[in-house]
């Protein structure tokens, strides 16, 4: 009858995929343990407006911490609140989305609780009250099965892996006092890029460019393809082009960049070094465009196009644009 706790990270004050995936997975777990789902959400006054969406994602009890200082993520305050909530009950598991925030916060909470942490979890099972998880290691070149020897099983969940079923029902909203102790660290600002594009680790469609692009001045061809694919698409890059300074490191896909699991991945002018393949091989559908028919990338691609990417990219973006317009003329 153990309950499951989820941290509901808000994005721009709203419930988005990170919160839904964490709460939704907690729901699936609690349905197995026979317990309830408790969600913690933090933010400035008015954050309780998120409660409805969290109940719809599966939360039975929504613990809301509101404070002006929480307009931005404050790691130490969030740690204190979560540790306090976690200390009230014997949770079977405590779930976070594996976002920049979740990856920063989960280890702090786990250390405060003296619990083990499994990061970037892609699967879980429950057997006789013991939680076992699967997670990629060596950047996805191997999958580890790990067993929690004692609760709570603290974990971060890889983006785009877990689904959630919207459901009817109201959660119980419960305010929690935000501790007023001094922050060790103060987040003073968030600076977002000028483009309103998704991060490569979160997008459901990724268009990555490699050395075959021949220079940063040709990236408009990839941007055009991304734009044709809609708001769910974003840009990625190989290590070679990041090391060459053509693209920012935040876009790098691979073992020393980000590991991604989008629905659709385009590898354009990328030969497919082992460290790159490790970072994107779990994409559901992979398209490779390369002039070298023997490039290793074709070994993992579902669909390959051999040829000059400068000739292929413009008609490809046009064709996708036409298709999307036909499907949704509005």
């Amino acid at each position, binding site marked *: 009858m153990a309950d499951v706790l989820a941290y509901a990270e808000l994005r721009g004050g709203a419930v988005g995929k990170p919160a839904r995936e964490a709460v939704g997975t907690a729901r699936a777990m609690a349905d197995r343990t026979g317990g309830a789902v408790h969600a913690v959400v933090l933010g400035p006054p008015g954050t309780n407006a998120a409660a409805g969406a969290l109940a719809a994602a599966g939360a039975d009890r929504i613990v809301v911490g509101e404070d002006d200082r929480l307009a931005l993520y404050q790691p130490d305050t969030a740690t204190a609140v979560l540790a306090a909530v976690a200390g009230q009950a014997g949770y079977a598991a405590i779930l976070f989305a594996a976002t920049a925030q979740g990856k920063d916060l989960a280890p702090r909470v786990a250390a405060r609780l003296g619990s083990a942490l499994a990061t970037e979890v892609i699967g879980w099972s429950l057997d006789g009250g013991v939680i076992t998880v699967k997670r990629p290691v060596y950047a996805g070149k191997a999958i580890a099965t790990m067993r*929690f020897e004692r609760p709570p099983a603290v974990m971060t969940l890889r983006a785009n892996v877990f689904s959630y079923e919207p459901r009817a029902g109201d959660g119980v909203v419960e305010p929690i006092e935000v501790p007023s102790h001094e922050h*060790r660290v103060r987040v003073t600002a968030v600076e977002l890029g000028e483009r309103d594009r998704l991060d490569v680790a979160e997008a459901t469609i990724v268009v990555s460019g490699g050395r075959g692009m021949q220079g940063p001045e040709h990236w408009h061809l990839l941007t055009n393809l991304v734009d044709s694919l809609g708001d769910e698409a974003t840009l990625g890059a190989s290590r070679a082009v990041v090391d060459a300074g053509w693209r920012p490191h935040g876009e790098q896909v691979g073992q020393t960049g980000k590991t991604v699991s989008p629905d659709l991945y385009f590898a354009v002018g990328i030969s497919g070094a082992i460290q790159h393949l490790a970072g994107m091989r779990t994409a559901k559908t992979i398209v490779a465009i390369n002039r070298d028919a023997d490039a290793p990338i074709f070994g993992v691609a579902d669909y390959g196009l051999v040829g000059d990417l400068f000739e292929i990219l413009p008609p490809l973006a046009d064709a996708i644009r036409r298709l999307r317009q036909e499907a949704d003329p509005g």
Partner: protein
Amino acid sequence: MNTIVCIKRVPDSATRVKLAPGGAALDPAGVKYVLNPYDEFALEEAIRRVEQAGTGSVTVIALGPPETAESLRQALAMGADEAVLLRADGSPDGLVVARALASEIEGRGADLILLGKQAIDDDNMQVPPMLAEILGLPCATVVVELDIEGSRCTARREIEGGHEVLEFDLPAVVSTQKGLNEPRYPTLKGIMAAKRKPLVEKDVALEDASITLVSLEEPPAPAAGRIVGEGPAAVSELVTLLREEAKVL
């Protein structure tokens, strides 16, 4: 400025992963081991800080098997002053590793403790904030910019689509991300000097892990792909396949 850098020895990112019989470990045959790439940024930052301050020291600490001494020598060759090897087999539980590091670090009076944001073998990405929690210190993770004036720090850390700006005071724990600096290569002079620098080795007993490795498996092999065609002529077939077969458009 007294700095401590925690490093790890890991298989090179070009390693083709083969599992040892039994499926619970990597087959070490033919694996090239390197200093964890993210730790190079931590080392470079520490060495630069001490160089700029003109005073202070860089102490490198690693937990791992005896061969880890090679990585510590490399750190000494880059410019670290002394090294400590905590001989242990490691643990799948990041908190166990963090506690072992913390007990070595405690009492050393470090101003700044630097670690790579994650090790590229177990990808646990949790030791730096855990270490900070145990030591009761401020912590900034995935840092790409670090300004220190006196004991006041401003850091930029990477988040989705941008950066968070953090302020904190020393002493602190900072985990480093690519972009923070350009790590130097050890010079011949540095390599020679490293041989004379102190490297202390000691056995440590680790606590029992609260999470254990049951097995390792290779990821499912990707389904055999196909070449749709050549050049722009194949574009329309590709788009049709993405729509009707893969159902992703």
